[in-house]
């Protein structure tokens, strides 16, 4: 039981660590994509 808890606790930390890093990575990726799209498709004056 103790060992089982330790395993699940390790999994919880892993989920939180990887989860938060993934959220950062994906959102920073989106930010870079937006910058790239704005450079490729700049707004015309009438927009």
């Amino acid at each position, binding site marked *: 039981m103790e060992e089982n808890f330790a395993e699940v606790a390790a999994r*919880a930390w892993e989920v939180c660590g990887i989860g*938060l890093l993934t*959220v*950062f990575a994906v959102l920073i990726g989106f930010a870079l994509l937006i910058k790239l799209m*704005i450079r490729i498709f700049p*707004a015309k004056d009438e927009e």
Partner: protein
Amino acid sequence: MFSAIWQFLLDFGPSLIMMVIGGLLIYLAIKKEYEPMLLLPIGFGAILANIPGSSAIGEHGFLTVLYNAGIANELFPILIFIGVGAMIDFGPLLRRPFMMFFGAAAQFGIFATLLAAFYIGQLKGLFPEGSIIANIIPQFSLKEAASIGIIGAADGPTSIYVASLFAPKLLGPISVAAYSYMSLVPLIQPPVIRLLTTKKERVIRMDHFDEVKVSKTVRILFPIIVTVVAGLVAPISVALIGALMFGNLIRECGVIERLSKSAQNELANLVTLLLGITIGSTMVAKDFLAPSTLFIMVMGLLAFIFDTAGGVMFAKLLNLFLKNKVNPMIGAAGISAFPMSARVIHKIGLEEDPSNYLLMHAIGANVAGQVGSIVAGGVLLALLQ
């Protein structure tokens, strides 16, 4: 006579308590205007479900039919997302992509609360075995802890979506906590922000941040590309993000105005109504009147506090490296509660310096938070499925 009343209370007391709770939610919705669109139907659903012998629940009860048709298969939250997507203007974020940092940082509360909910069961060890306190401390599984943590998404449909998959028994308290605290953002965020920032930091101006013009092409491509990229990273999140971005695409494309208006109004309103009353029907006494509900409410509050702290502290961290400083309060707007959080930040900014207008920056961070919360929900689903 006395024993008959006592027996009645024993038999129906829990149901009566639930009906009072339902009434309280209706009171908060009407009198205090706390998320009335959701809390009122939830409150009434709770009353309907707890009337002894109610025909609204059970095999052929209309609320059970609605539950199976829209919650058990996650359909209602997905439909809500189409409406929400059609309502969101990503413009303030597209003009300031930098704000994505805060949309990510303010999801800290989800993961911190997941850990807190998971470890809470360990408190049992501090009390003698079999004691009352040891008995009331709940032990949450990892999936249940994740469902509680997702309250920190500050995003009702995401919380409902994740909870209905990972912890259907906790759906009632999780939904109530998520919507209650969203409406309490103006009370929760200011003290946390003031605690973590100095007066000097709160008056930082952000006029030096460039605003780029965004073309219609970018506005149209954004929802499509985000869906594809997020789908490749976490395929299980496609339903969540895809529905939101589909709603946004029909808004931005400009050629299906009628559908966009329908998604924003008829679809969103109708599904919100059904979603609320159906969630209320899950608040039956035997599930809701448990110590775990109290713990979930406390954890939900913690999640919002951790979110706010995560956003503010990350902005302060960035300021160590930036030449043009960011007002750290903007970090707190990275939660998904839109536009409440942005308004709160703008208001505090004006209180500190009446000529410092932070609203558009805060809205950019707030919109980033909407994207961030759904991504976080999708990531949790992918990691724990």
